[in-house]
C-alpha cells in the first residue's frame, strides 16, 4: 500500500495496536471460559496491553527486516532502504539515525507539552483550598501522569540528542544497529499510548512511584500504567545499547576516546545507566502486576511480602534514572560553552571522566529516597555518605564550566542563553540536594513540597534548558534553516524568571510544612498566596514552552536559510557538512588532526575529510 492513510506507518501501527489489544482480551477471556472461570477485566486488559504493543510494532513495520532474516531470506541492508520524502518519512519506520533522532525529538516535545498540560490542570486546582475544578481521584491520576509523562519526555529527549548527534560527532554513517534503532524508537509510541490509556480505566491514585500496597489495591488504570512503563523500559534499554555499541565501535580513525567531542562521553555514560538499571523498574512493576493478578506475595505483608523490597528495586533504577535525564543536558552544556566562549573546554579529560563518575556513584545512592521508609537502620548512614559524594564529580563539571567561561569571549546567542540558564537553574537544583541527602534534615523535608522544588530545578536545569539550547543550536543542521532569534530570546526571558518564581514558591511551602501529592490544603498555615504565584509562574513556563514549539514548527517551514558553519564551531558536523546534513553524513571518512576545543588556536583544525585518491580538491 503506497498511498492512502494506511501507507502511513504510525496510522497502521495504531490500528494494529487496537487490534492487538482486542486479541489479548479475547485470548484471556477464551482461556478463562475454557477453564470454567468467568470474564475478568483486569487480566484481559493486561494481556491486551502487551499484545497491543506487539500489534503496533507489526503494524508500523518495525519487525520486517528481522522477520525476513529469521526466515532465511535476505533483507535489504538498512542504508539502502528507500524512504518517502518530506514530512511523511517521519511517520513511519526509517533506519536513518537523523530521521529517528527527529522522531524522538518530536515525541519529546509532544510528551513535555502533554505532561506540562496535566500539571497546569492540577496547578489550577491548587490555587485555592477546597476542590473547585477536579475530583480527588482525577487529581491523583493527573499528578501521577504528569510525573511519568515528563519522565518519558526526558528519556526520549536524551535519546533524541544521542541518536541525532553521536554518529555525526564520531564521523560515522549511522548507528551500529540501524534496524534496532528504529525498533527502539517505535516501541515508545505504543508505550505512551498505554500509559495515557490508564485514564480510561479509572486512573490510579499512587503517584508515578506506584508504591505497594496502595498500588495493589488501586484501580485497573494502574495496570495500564505499569504495562506502558514496562514497554517503554524496553525501548529505553535497546536504544541505549545501540549508543554504547556505536560509540565503542564506529568512531572515525584517529578518534580515540579522549578525542571525541565531549557530548559523546555524556551520551555514553547515560546509555550505560539506561541499558542496565532500567530493567529494575520493569521488574518491580511486573512484580506488582503479578501480585495483583495472581496474588503473589511480594510486597503486601498480608501475603507474606515486604513493601520495602519494592522501594529498593524501584529506586535502584529511579535514582540513576535522574542521571539519565541530566547527563545528556550536561554534555550539551560542555559541548556548547567552548563554542560560545571561544576557548577550550576547561579540563576536558576531567569533564569526560566526571560523567562516568556521576554514573557510577549514581548507582550507589538509591536508598536516600527511603530514609523514612522504615528500612534497615544500618543502611541509612552509608547511603547518606554516598549521596553527598555525588556532589564531587558534579562539582568538577560546574567548576570546569566556570573555568571555560572565565577569560573567554562570550557570545550571547540564543543557545548560549539557554546554556547559561541551565547552569543557573541546575546550580539551584544541585545545592538543594545535600539538604535532602542528610538524614536529619530529610526527616523534615521528605515528601514535602520542597522535594518538588528540588527535582524541578534539577530537571529544568539539567534537561529542559539544555534541550532547548540543543534544538536551537543544531536546528540548521537538522533542517537547513535557523530558528527565530527573537522568539528564542522571548522564550528565554519568559522561562527563566517564571521558573525561578515557581521553584522558590515550591521550596518555601515545603519548608513550612506543606506535603506533596495533596489535592487540597488547609487555610492555615497560609499557603494560598504562594500557590497563586506558583500557578501563575507555571502558566508562564507553559507559555514559554508553547512559544518554543511555535518557533520550532514555523522555522522548520519558513525559517531563514542557514548556510555554512553558523556558530563557527570546530565540531565535524559543522566544519565538514552542509545544512541540513546529508543522508549518510560524511562523503569520505574523516580523520582527527587536532584537539576538539582548541578555539584559541585559530589556525588549527579538529577534523578533516580524508582526501580521495585522484581527486583534485
Amino acid at each position: 500500500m503506497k498511498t492512502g492513510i494506511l501507507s502511513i506507518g504510525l496510522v497502521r501501527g495504531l490500528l494494529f495496536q487496537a487490534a492487538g489489544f482486542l486479541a489479548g482480551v479475547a485470548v484471556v477471556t477464551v482461556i478463562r471460559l475454557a477453564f470454567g472461570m468467568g470474564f475478568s477485566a483486569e487480566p484481559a486488559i493486561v494481556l491486551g496491553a502487551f499484545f497491543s504493543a506487539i500489534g503496533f510494532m507489526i503494524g508500523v513495520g518495525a519487525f520486517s527486516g528481522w522477520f525476513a532474516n529469521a526466515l532465511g531470506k535476505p533483507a535489504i541492508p538498512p542504508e539502502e532502504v528507500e524512504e518517502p520524502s518530506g514530512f511523511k518519512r517521519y511517520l513511519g519506520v526509517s533506519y536513518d539515525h537523523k530521521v529517528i533522532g527527529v522522531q524522538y525529538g518530536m515525541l519529546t516535545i509532544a510528551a513535555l507539552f502533554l505532561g506540562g498540560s496535566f500539571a497546569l490542570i492540577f496547578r489550577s486546582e491548587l490555587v485555592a483550598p477546597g476542590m473547585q475544578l477536579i475530583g480527588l481521584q482525577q487529581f491523583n491520576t493527573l499528578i501521577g501522569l504528569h510525573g511519568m509523562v515528563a519522565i518519558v519526555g526526558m528519556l526520549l529527549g536524551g535519546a533524541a540528542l544521542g541518536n541525532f548527534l553521536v554518529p555525526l560527532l564520531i564521523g560515522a554513517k549511522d548507528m551500529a544497529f540501524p534496524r534496532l534503532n528504529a525498533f527502539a524508537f517505535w516501541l515508545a509510541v505504543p508505550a505512551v499510548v498505554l500509559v495515557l490509556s490508564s485514564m480510561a480505566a479509572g486512573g490510579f491514585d499512587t503517584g508515578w512511584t506506584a508504591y505497594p500496597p496502595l498500588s495493589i489495591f488501586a484501580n485497573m488504570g494502574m495496570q495500564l500504567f505499569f504495562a506502558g512503563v514496562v514497554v517503554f523500559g524496553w525501548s529505553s534499554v535497546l536504544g541505549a545499547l545501540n549508543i554504547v555499541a556505536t560509540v565503542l565501535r564506529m568512531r572515525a580513525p584517529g578518534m580515540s576516546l579522549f578525542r571525541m567531542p565531549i557530548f559523546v562521553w555524556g551520551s555514553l555514560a547515560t546509555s550505560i545507566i539506561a541499558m542496565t538499571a532500567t530493567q529494575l523498574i520493569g521488574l518491580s512493576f511486573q512484580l506488582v502486576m503479578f501480585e495483583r493478578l495472581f496474588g503473589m506475595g511480594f510486597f503486601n505483608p498480608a501475603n507474606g511480602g515486604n513493601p520495602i523490597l519494592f522501594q529498593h528495586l524501584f529506586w535502584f533504577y529511579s535514582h540513576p534514572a535522574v542521571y539519565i535525564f541530566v547527563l545528556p543536558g550536561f554534555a550539551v552544556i560542555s559541548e556548547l560553552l567552548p563554542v560560545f566562549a571561544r576557548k577550550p573546554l576547561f579540563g576536558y579529560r576531567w569533564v569526560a571522566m566526571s560523567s562516568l563518575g556521576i554514573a557510577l556513584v549514581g548507582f550507589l545512592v538509591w536508598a536516600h529516597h527511603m530514609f523514612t521508609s522504615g528500612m534497615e537502620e544500618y543502611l541509612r548512614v552509608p547511603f547518606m555518605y554516598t549521596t553527598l559524594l555525588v556532589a564531587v564529580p558534579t562539582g568538577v563539571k560546574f567548576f570546569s564550566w566556570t573555568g571555560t567561561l572565565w577569560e573567554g569571549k562570550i557570545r550571547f546567542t540564543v543557545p548560549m542563553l539557554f546554556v547559561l540558564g541551565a547552569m543557573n537553574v541546575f546550580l539551584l537544583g544541585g545545592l538543594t540536594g545535600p539538604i535532602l541527602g542528610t538524614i536529619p534534615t530529610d526527616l523534615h523535608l521528605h515528601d514535602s513540597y520542597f522535594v518538588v522544588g528540588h527535582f524541578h530545578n534539577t530537571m529544568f536545569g539539567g534537561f529542559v534548558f539544555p534541550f532547548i539550547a540543543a534544538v536551537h543550536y543544531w536546528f540548521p543542521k537538522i533542517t537547513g534553516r535557523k530558528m527565530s532569534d527573537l522568539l528564542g530570546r522571548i522564550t528565554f526571558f519568559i522561562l527563566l524568571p517564571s521558573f525561578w518564581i515557581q521553584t522558590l514558591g515550591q521550596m518555601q511551602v515545603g519548608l513550612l510544612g506543606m506535603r506533596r501529592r495533596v489535592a487540597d490544603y488547609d487555610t492555615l498555615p497560609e499557603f494560598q498566596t504562594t500557590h497563586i504565584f506558583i500557578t501563575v509562574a507555571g502558566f508562564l513556563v507553559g507559555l514559554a514552552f508553547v512559544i518554543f514549539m511555535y518557533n520550532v514548527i514555523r522555522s522548520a517551514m519558513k525559517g531563514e536559510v542557514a548556510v555554512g558553519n553558523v556558530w563557527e564551531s570546530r565540531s565535524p558536523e559543522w566544519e565538514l557538512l552542509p545544512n541540513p546534513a546529508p543522508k549518510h553524513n560524511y562523503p569520505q571518512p574523516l580523520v582527527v588532526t587536532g584537539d576538539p576545543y582548541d578555539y584559541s588556536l585559530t589556525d588549527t583544525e579538529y577534523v578533516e575529510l580524508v582526501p580521495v585518491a585522484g581527486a583534485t580538491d
Partner: protein
Amino acid sequence: MNPNPRKILIASGNSLFGKGLMGLIAQRWKKDPPEIRLSRQMAETLEMMESWQPDLVIVDYDDTTIDRGEFLRSFVSGDQPMQVMLVSLQASGAVVVYDRRTLTPAQAEDWLSVPWVSPEEPDVSKEQRSSTMRHFVIAGILIVLVATIVYLLLNTIGILPAPASVEAGPIDQLFTAHFLAIAVLFALITVLMVYSMIVFRQRKGDNTPGRNIKGSTRLEIFWTLIPLVVVLYFSYLGSATLDRTNAQAPDALEVDVLGGQWYWSFTYPDWDITTNELWLPVDRPVLFRLRSADVIHSFWVPEWRVKQDLLPGENFVRELRVTPTEEGQFQLLCAEMCGVRHAYMVSPVYVVSQDEFNTWVNEQTQAIDLDPAARGQKWAQDAGCFSCHSIDGSDSIGPTWLGLYDSERELVSGETVEVDDDYLFTAIVDPDVHVAEGFRPGVMPQDYETRLTEEQIEDIIEFIESLE
C-alpha cells in the same frame, strides 16, 4: 614470510622514541613484520628516503632538529608511494598522517606553520597574570558579599516553622549549616558566571578568541579534594545530628499509632485509651509505635521536624521518638500518598501541661457516658468512622448516617433492604456483604470486629439510630 615486507623509517633525534616505536610495531605486527630502520639525523633521514624508499616515515614532531621545510621538499619531490606520520607525544599524543600523492598545499602550509607545541600551560606574560589577579580579587570580594547576603536571607526570613520539639534543635542547626554551604556555593558560581558574562563578553567587532586555557591539573585536584572533604564533613554532621535525634529516653510515654485510609487512631497502653486526637504532655519524651492498617502512611508534625512511615503488617511496627517542647495545637499530617483522601488524613495534636494532660486522661477513662448514643458517637469518632461517613447528610466516601436508620436502601445487587440493627451490625463487621448502591466494596476497613467490642458496636448503632 612476506617477501616484500613494508618498509618503515623512524626519524627522531631521541633514541628512546625510535626504539620504543620499534618494539611496539614488532609486537603489533608479529604475523607480518615490517622492516624498520631508525635515523637520528636530518641528513641521514633524507638520504634514506631517497635510497631505501620506505613506505612509511614516522617523524617525531617534537624534534626541533628536524628541518621541516627540507623534509617537506624531499617528501613531495619523490614519486614512489610514501606516507609520513607525524607523531607528537607532547601534544597529547597527536598523530597526523599525510600521503605523498595527496598532500595538498594547505596541509603543507599547516605543517610548516604550526608552532612547536609547548607542554602544559603556555607562557603567561606579566600583564596577563596581574590582570587575572585583578579579576580574581574583584570577583572574590563580590562572592563574599553575595554569600553573606544570601546566608542572612535564608536565616532571617523564617522559612522553617517554629521548632517545637527537642529533636528540632539539632536538626535546625544542621539546616543552618546547610544554608551556609548553599549561600557560599551559590555565590561562588553565580558571581563568577555573571562576572564573566559582563567582563568577558565579546565586544562588537572583536573576533579574537578567548584565552588558551586547556586546564590545570592542580586546580582539578583542588576542586575535587576540597568538596570531598566538605561532603565527608557534612555526612559526619548528619550522622552526629541523627544520633542526637534518636536519643532513647528510658521512661518515654508510649503511644501506639494506627494509621489507615484515611484516619489516625491513637492508643495509650498505659491507660487503655483509644482516641482520634493526639494529646501529649509537654516536655515528656514520647515513644510512638507506628503501624498501618492497610497501605503505607507517614507520621509528620512539621514543627517537630521528624517523620516516619507507617507500614502494614504485624511484623512491621516502626518506632519514632519525639519530645514536644511547646504547648499548643498542631496538626499530624499523613506524609505518604495513601489514596484518594490522602490530603485529608490529618488529625489534631494537643500539647498541654502535665496537669491538663492528666485531666484529659481522666476524662477519657472515667466519663464513659451512660447514654449509649453518646458513647456510640465517641466510639465512632475514635474508630475513624467520620473520615468516610458524615452525620449531616453530606456526601462522602461512605453513606451518610443521617436518616440511615430504619430507611430502605438499594444495594448494588439490586435487592432492597431495610436498614435495621442486624443490617448495621453486618455492615460494620463484614462490610462487603451488603454494598449500597452508589458505593464500592473493598474500601471500608474489614477489621472492626476485632477493633471494637460488641457493646461498642451496639452503641454505635444506637448513635446512628439517633440521627433522624
